[in-house]
């Protein structure tokens, strides 16, 4: 793999906040949730437990997904119901949501007592499609997933420690294979879940070296991960995000944490943030980096200073960005008629001065 030098590492200063009016929806209580953009929708998953008392007493754990229509960065229209996973196997914990520009999305539904269930939403008849679901103890486990044109691609970790790249056709177009599943070996040994996927690209931190990120491409029409390069890191990688042409890492070097973006095709490093305590949450979308820094949600786009886009009222539970918008999930404590009420607020704000989106051509590591 070619190597990118860390020379010219620049640090971006924070800009003066100028906050846009957020658009928000609220969800009862503080359930485990995840959020992600999906075209002109914000998709989210809510995990809850329901105790059934009719007949015998028992608990059903569930993860429900929904979509909230968006007009630019405003939440509009009614909530659209999506898939409903119910289980007695163990507690559900929502799981990563991955969307694309067309409004489709997938979820890697996670929980205790069962491996992640990779589910695509939705087919033309609005039914969802379970893509990877293996209930065996010690079976293969999905560790990352993305929508990539007509494919849902994901990486499986096998019981023997090997990894596979799986390409699953979800196209319903005439003449296209509907449910073709092609699995190819992936020469990767990701360390502690440090693997990320985006359309056309996979990145991971290898167990053999936690101070570099490896990047390979998944070219259109092909089923193998090919080529690749190594991006050295100034310390141990703790988090990894990936978009079509950007790698974002949170690294620790001694007592200092750094959030660094590497923009392709030169993979030039830029320090977005650094400090003694890691930001609570980080995200990347297209060419935008988002982070929760103390009580603020901040953005950073190429060539611009980091700036605050949202002042949080409670603890942040999740953030996501698609490059043009940032969504945050806040846990709020309010009072109603003298009683304490817990709510989760889904808040969307526009990215200030959004960079032009990448062309949908293939990335070039």
């Amino acid at each position, binding site marked *: 793999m070619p190597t990118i030098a860390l020379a010219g590492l620049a640090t971006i200063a924070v800009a003066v906040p100028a906050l846009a009016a957020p658009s928000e929806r609220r969800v009862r209580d503080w359930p485990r949730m995840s959020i992600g953009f999906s075209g002109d929708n914000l998709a989210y998953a809510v995990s809850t437990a329901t105790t059934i008392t009719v007949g015998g007493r028992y608990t059903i754990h569930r993860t429900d997904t929904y979509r909230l229509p968006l007009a630019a960065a405003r939440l509009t229209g009614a909530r659209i119901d999506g898939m409903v996973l*119910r*289980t007695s196997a163990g507690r559900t914990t929502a799981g990563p949501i991955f969307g694309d520009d067309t409004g489709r999305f997938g979820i890697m539904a996670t929980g205790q007592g069962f491996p992640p269930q990779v589910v695509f939403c939705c087919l033309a008849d609005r039914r969802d499609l379970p893509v990877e679901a293996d*209930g065996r103890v010690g079976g293969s486990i999905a560790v990352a997933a993305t929508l990539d044109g007509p494919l849902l691609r994901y990486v499986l970790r096998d019981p023997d420690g090997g990894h596979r790249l799986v390409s699953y056709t979800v196209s319903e177009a005439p003449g296209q294979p509907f449910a073709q599943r092609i699995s190819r070996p992936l020469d990767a040994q990701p360390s502690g879940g440090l693997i990320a996927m985006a359309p056309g690209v996979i990145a991971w931190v290898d167990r053999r070296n936690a101070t570099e990120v490896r990047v390979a491409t998944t070219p259109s029409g092909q089923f193998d991960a090919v080529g690749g390069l190594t991006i050295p890191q100034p310390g141990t990688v703790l988090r990894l995000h990936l978009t079509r042409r950007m790698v974002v890492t949170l690294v620790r070097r001694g007592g200092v944490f750094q959030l660094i973006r590497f923009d392709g095709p030169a993979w030039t490093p830029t320090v977005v943030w650094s400090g003694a305590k890691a930001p609570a949450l980080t995200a990347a979308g297209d060419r935008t980096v988002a982070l929760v820094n103390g009580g603020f949600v901040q953005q950073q786009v190429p060539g611009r200073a980091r700036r605050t886009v949202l002042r949080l009222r409670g603890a942040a539970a999740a953030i996501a960005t698609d490059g043009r918008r940032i969504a945050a999930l806040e846990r709020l404590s309010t009072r109603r008629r003298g009683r304490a009420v817990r709510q989760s607020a889904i808040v969307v704000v526009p990215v200030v001065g959004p960079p032009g989106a990448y062309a949908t051509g293939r990335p070039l590591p």
Partner: protein
Amino acid sequence: MRRLVTSLALALVAAAPAFGAPVVAIQDDQISNDPNAETIAYRVAQLASTGAKWTRVDIDWSYVAPTRPANADDPDDPAYDWSRYDTMLSALRDKGVGVMITLLGTPPWASTTGKWNAAPRPADGGSFAGAVAKRYSGSWPKRGGGLLPAVRSISPRNEPNIDLMTSPQCRRLANGRWVPASPRAYAALLRAAYPKIKAGNPRVIVVAGETAAGDNGGCRNASTTIGTFDFVKLLHTALGGGRKMPFDAWAQHMHPVGPPDRAAFFPSWRTMPQLTALLNRMHPKGRMPVIISETSYATTYTAYHRYFVSEAQQAAYIDLTYKLAGRQPQVEVVVYFNLQDHRAWTAGLFRDDWTAKPSLQVFRRRAAATALTAKWASLP
């Protein structure tokens, strides 16, 4: 926890009473999808390896009769293509596995809408059921010599109370109100099918119902599921009330959301007495035989059921299912659904790669421990 669940399952097997327990049956819902004889032989061998002596086979009417037969009562009408089912049923007989038949699907020519799930014209549906009864009566010649096998029961339609299988479920009145339509349509089908089936094979059991589980929420549109209890009551009314019905037994599907001893959605093992009370009003002796023709626990998420359990829970719950069924004296057969996982249904005893789940061992022990009653002891 897993060890505890498994131990519990094995303890329940050991404690299971052998006498009076329902027939332990299993369905391979994928066997119909591949007409390849080698594939069928393999699947039948796998099915037989579970120890089940009975299975349920769905016959897709739209596959057998893609065009209208000139004489629909005649199984040898050239419009019929039975090849897939002849192969399958013969292979099952060769392995000593008895068959219960359920009909599903509607050919385009047999309904007004032409859709696969359309409620058929009763006369057409009745004639096809009669042709099935004749062909699989044990006396119909097999191509190449010998006789085709006999089946024990025939059910004229699968899941007549849900839109996925039968449409429409409800119809709109002039005043805009939606009312149930499927019970009356199903009643007409039963009336047409019963004499044809009995004419084809007087010994065969005519099974009604095959109802999918559903609550009783009332019609909201044409595709609203009619809850099981409502469906039974409305069917009884549509058939004129009383105790003389055009069927001999009732089949019910049960895919619980929750443990089998606790789930209370309609119907469930907890609410089974309510169901049998309704059914008994439809039986001359006040004791309707009941077949649970589908029950399952999926081990991963599927879009059709949306509920799943761990593989250890599946093993324990299947065992508990048969234990609970043994306490219901009118339940004669419990068909576990299905043999092998596939994308739409992952309740198999085998995974999609044919490796065994823990439930296979539990099922085998149950099947081995069950003494068949005289009615189900021998092949037809």
